[in-house]
């Protein structure tokens, strides 16, 4: 389950599942309802900060739950159901009418990394934790929207290859160089503090959420198509 609380203008979404914050159907549903609630409560100046506690930001889908199914085909169905239910969560983040920040407090792997990179800004602790796409190592192809979001957010061909096709485990300092992470910080606490400061700065801009979301979508047209997001007609406050 996750929790949502408001600190000033910044909405803090805390991911809390098992120790690894694996994205089980329950956690995914809980994320989607939090984002749905945020969409309706957004005001100019709202900002989302997503973080987690412990050693993991999120370790991806709950493969243990999938594998505990009665048969391999039932396990595959469970995996597919998680792939399908995370898609609207990613779409909600890309369409959220406010700036979004992920404060990566620990490992972010597979779907957990996708979740982090679906935010506008990713801050990460440098003393612990890696960004990692294990699919190539475990022999699992990428769902279409995973690849689409990663391609949209990681613009360096070499960085994309090393992460997706090389199974590289990327620490914060390197992730900054690769252009995946905004800034590296020396502990989980300082990462969240820096994310709060960034959130407050962004909140002061009092951007119109609906326009912000449309501009964001226009930056990632390929990802939006795969996620089923369409552009709205022009909205403007002028």
């Amino acid at each position: 389950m996750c929790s949502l609380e408001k600190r000033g203008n910044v909405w803090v979404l805390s991911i809390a599942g098992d120790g690894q914050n694996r994205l089980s159907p329950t956690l995914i549903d809980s994320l989607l309802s939090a984002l749905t609630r945020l969409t309706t409560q957004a005001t100019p100046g709202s900002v989302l900060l997503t973080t987690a506690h412990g050693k993991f930001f999120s370790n991806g889908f709950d493969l243990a739950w999938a594998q505990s199914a009665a048969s391999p085909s039932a396990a595959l169905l469970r995996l597919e159901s998680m792939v399908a239910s995370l898609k609207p969560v990613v779409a909600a983040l890309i369409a959220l009418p406010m700036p979004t920040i992920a404060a990566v407090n620990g490992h972010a792997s597979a779907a957990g990394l996708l979740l982090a990179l679906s935010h506008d800004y990713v801050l990460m602790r440098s003393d612990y934790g890696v960004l990692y796409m294990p699919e190539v190592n475990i022999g699992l192809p990428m769902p279409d929207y995973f690849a689409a979001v990663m391609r949209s957010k990681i613009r360096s061909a070499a960085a994309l290859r090393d992460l997706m096709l090389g199974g590289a485990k990327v620490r914060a300092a390197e992730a900054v160089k690769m252009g995946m992470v905004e800034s590296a910080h020396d502990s989980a606490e300082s990462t969240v503090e820096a994310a709060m400061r960034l959130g407050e700065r962004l909140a002061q801009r009092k951007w119109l959420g609906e326009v912000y979301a449309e501009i964001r979508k226009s930056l990632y047209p390929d990802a939006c198509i795969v996620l089923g997001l369409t552009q709205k007609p022009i909205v403007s406050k002028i």
Partner: protein
Amino acid sequence: MCTLEKRGSVFVLTLTSENDEQHRLNPALLSSLLAALSQLNSQATASSALITAAHGRFFCNGFDFRWAQAAADQPSARRRLRRMSDSLRAVLAALLSLPMPTVAALSGHAAAAGTVLALAHDYVLMRSDRGVIYMPEVDLGITLPDYFAAVATAKMAAARRDVVLGGRKVRAVEAVAMGIVQSAHDSAEGTVEAAMRLGEELAQREWVGDAYAEIRKTLYPQFCATLGLTPKAIVSKI
């Protein structure tokens, strides 16, 4: 022509110089490359990797324009060019769907279609003491086949303006800085040795070839669409 040999777990595809030290891509060389890649497809195991290298001062100097121009008239010269372009498309499609990591060791110049051939590999290593990557089309006043532009977009990102639209001749060190080449080495031998080491490292990962090829394809959807490659259904070893 080309030869294919296996050294340990690494397959080495070598463009040989008996007919043409520039390894220009004519129908005979293109068929020979396609045959080698088809053979590789059937021989791939979970710990395979491919290195492509060449003898002499050229990796590959592009299509064999001499052969095209030796045709009786201009229409047949164009048909010959079209035929080579179609054959290279099939070679690139085979490389993009090859179920193993691929490494190009550039021991000399790579120009035009030769650059495209090199960039279709997952990793490109290059000697720094001589040799350039060069797209001469803008200088020669000829347009690009659609898949040339697609591979440039997929693999060169921002550098494509300088290389494709600027006709810049890029040495190894600069190519590394531009993110086109993985690493620069001080001789042809040094480049091939480094490529062998990289190939062995990649082979040791024992990636599932089918999943590897599918992930690769999801990274370059536009390039794949141009080549006529479509994604397969999910395969998984979990």
